[in-house]
């Protein structure tokens, strides 16, 4: 297969003009209109700002060896210096990038490397890439859980570093690990989330039941401890939790990993519905190429922290040719552009 082009970064026609009725959210005891309808929100910094702007963002993790290891290396280094007479007195440069060890000191891992993307309001934007290539790091940067070393990220016009409080009100995230208080029931976990997000308690209870039912969770499951639930069921509760807070932007980091095909389709349908009904912007990472193909308006493929392609699913498939002449799938595109095997295990980023 060969790559033929990767130029189109325009939002697809399908996502334009998909405005529907705004969603009611019971925030701080009052019924308010959530700020998610394109161009109609006073909660966003700039009514015309895209949902997400990532401009030249870089994130490097520095991993220092332990104190004893540093002392041992220093001792070895001093011993080597004493036995050599190169006259420079230098011991090498600073830590190297891309996982290389620099001089026995810090190991620098470039998780996200000068990434720039723009996601329009109401778009479902896919982020694909092999394990450990920076997808989850990018999601964490957008979620205000990490600070970028370079570049700028804005969510609906708000800077994630300087205006993190405003950003947090507009987003929610479902990660591959369903993070819950495991002894608590789904309802108790959801009520905790509702209170944090200022959602009225009574409304939250009713809405929780409605969403969980919609995702195929039985009513009695709401009062069982999370630890007694399967991973798939826990993941559904995680998704319900995200939807409960009515986010303007939903960050879905491998949300359907571990779900059976039936549940996976229920989640996918729910994501599409919430986008259609409430114009929610969705950033989706997944290892399921079929899911990406059917769900996403546009897809960026990331490898070694860099965006290597960005286009509509159709556009991406047009960028490669198969050896046997069949129509390329998204999986073909992925393998061609990243040159790696697909894996289904969890991402092993730093």
């Amino acid at each position, binding site marked *: 297969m060969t790559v033929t082009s990767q130029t189109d970064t325009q939002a697809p026609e399908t996502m334009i003009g998909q405005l529907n009725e705004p969603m009611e959210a019971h925030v701080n005891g009052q019924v308010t209109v959530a700020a998610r309808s394109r161009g109609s929100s006073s909660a966003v910094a700039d009514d015309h700002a895209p949902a997400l702007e990532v401009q030249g963002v870089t994130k490097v993790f520095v991993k220092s060896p332990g104190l004893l290891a540093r002392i041992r290396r220093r001792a070895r280094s001093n011993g080597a210096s004493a036995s050599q007479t190169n006259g420079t007195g230098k011991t090498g440069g600073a830590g190297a990038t891309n996982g290389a060890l620099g001089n026995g000191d810090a190991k620098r891992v470039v998780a996200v490397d000068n990434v720039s993307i723009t996601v329009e309001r109401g778009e479902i934007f896919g982020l694909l890439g092999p394990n450990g290539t920076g997808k989850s790091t990018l999601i*964490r940067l957008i*979620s205000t859980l*990490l600070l970028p070393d370079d570049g700028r990220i804005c969510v609906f016009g708000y800077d994630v570093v300087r205006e993190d409080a405003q950003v947090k009100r507009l987003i929610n995230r479902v990660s591959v690990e369903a*993070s819950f208080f495991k002894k608590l029931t789904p309802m108790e976990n959801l009520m905790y989330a509702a209170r944090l*997000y200022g959602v009225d308690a009574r409304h939250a209870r009713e809405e929780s039941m409605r969403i969980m039912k919609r995702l195929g969770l039985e009513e009695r499951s709401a009062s069982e401890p999370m630890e007694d639930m399967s991973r798939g069921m826990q993941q559904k509760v995680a998704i319900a939790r995200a939807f409960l807070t009515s986010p303007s932007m939903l960050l879905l980091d491998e949300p359907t990993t571990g779900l059976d095909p039936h549940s996976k389709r229920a989640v996918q349908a729910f994501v599409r519905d919430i986008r259609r009904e409430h114009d929610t912007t969705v950033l989706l990472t997944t290892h399921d190429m079929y899911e990406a193909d059917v769900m996403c308006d546009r897809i960026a493929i990331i490898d070694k922290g860099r965006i290597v392609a960005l286009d509509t699913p159709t556009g991406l498939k047009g960028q490669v040719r198969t050896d046997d002449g069949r129509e390329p799938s998204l999986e073909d595109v992925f393998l061609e552009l990243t040159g790696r095997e697909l894996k289904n295990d969890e991402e092993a980023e730093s």
Partner: protein
Amino acid sequence: MTTTAGELRASYAFVERNINLVKRYWGWEIVWIAYTIANSLAVVLIARGVNSAVQEDALTQANIDKLVLFLAIGALVWHYLAVVFEVVSEMISWERWEGTIEYTFMAPVRRSTHMIGTTLFSLVYGMVHTVVILLVIVLVFDLDMSRANFPAAAAVLAVGSLSLVGIGIMGAVLPLLYPERGAQMTHVVQAGMVLISGVYISPAEMPEPLHTLSKISPATYVLAGIRSALMEGTGLTELWPLLVGLLAAGLVLIPVGVHVFGWGERYAKRTGRLKRSG
């Protein structure tokens, strides 16, 4: 105003969550309270055994009773302060253990709201624990509380808790910075405070270096004030300079704690330490 009300309502999320967790971990709560009762009784029993330990009647019964009360107050007050400190400093280690830390940190609540909620819970939880232990001690020992000034003691405890909350918030930064061993590091802070604060002996009796250090621990003044109120019946009129000092310490230590925690949070977000679940 609306924002403040909203933040206060959000702080209840942490109170409600912790109450739910206590209900679910009821077995552990029973073990924990039994352990603390046994510890407290063991400390107070030292007073009963003093004469036999030195093999002579060194202390009169009145003095033994006084020593029982002295140690009981030390054990109870220290337990209360330790619970407050531990709950506050555990607000991070618990979330690391459960794997919820990222979710809580990306929620739209101020860190101060997070801390207010946790602190409110810690004060109520510490008080309930202490009352249970007090009831057991009263049942086992015949404590002479005839001269006790309970309102004054309660005032010292309430105002003194503020300083401990401030130190606890500073302690909470350790699990944030050191995912694997941060929680255990907070125990070092606690052990240091129990050593220098005159929990079981008067600071005046300590070796000079410890006696000097005791002057910087707010717990020293809390214990001195409560002992004075319960053993000598000292009232609020005499205790007000101490209360003002403790209030001032609390008003300094809480913002300092929040500031230190804020620095730790930014560091954790820069270095990616929020993610590791210890």
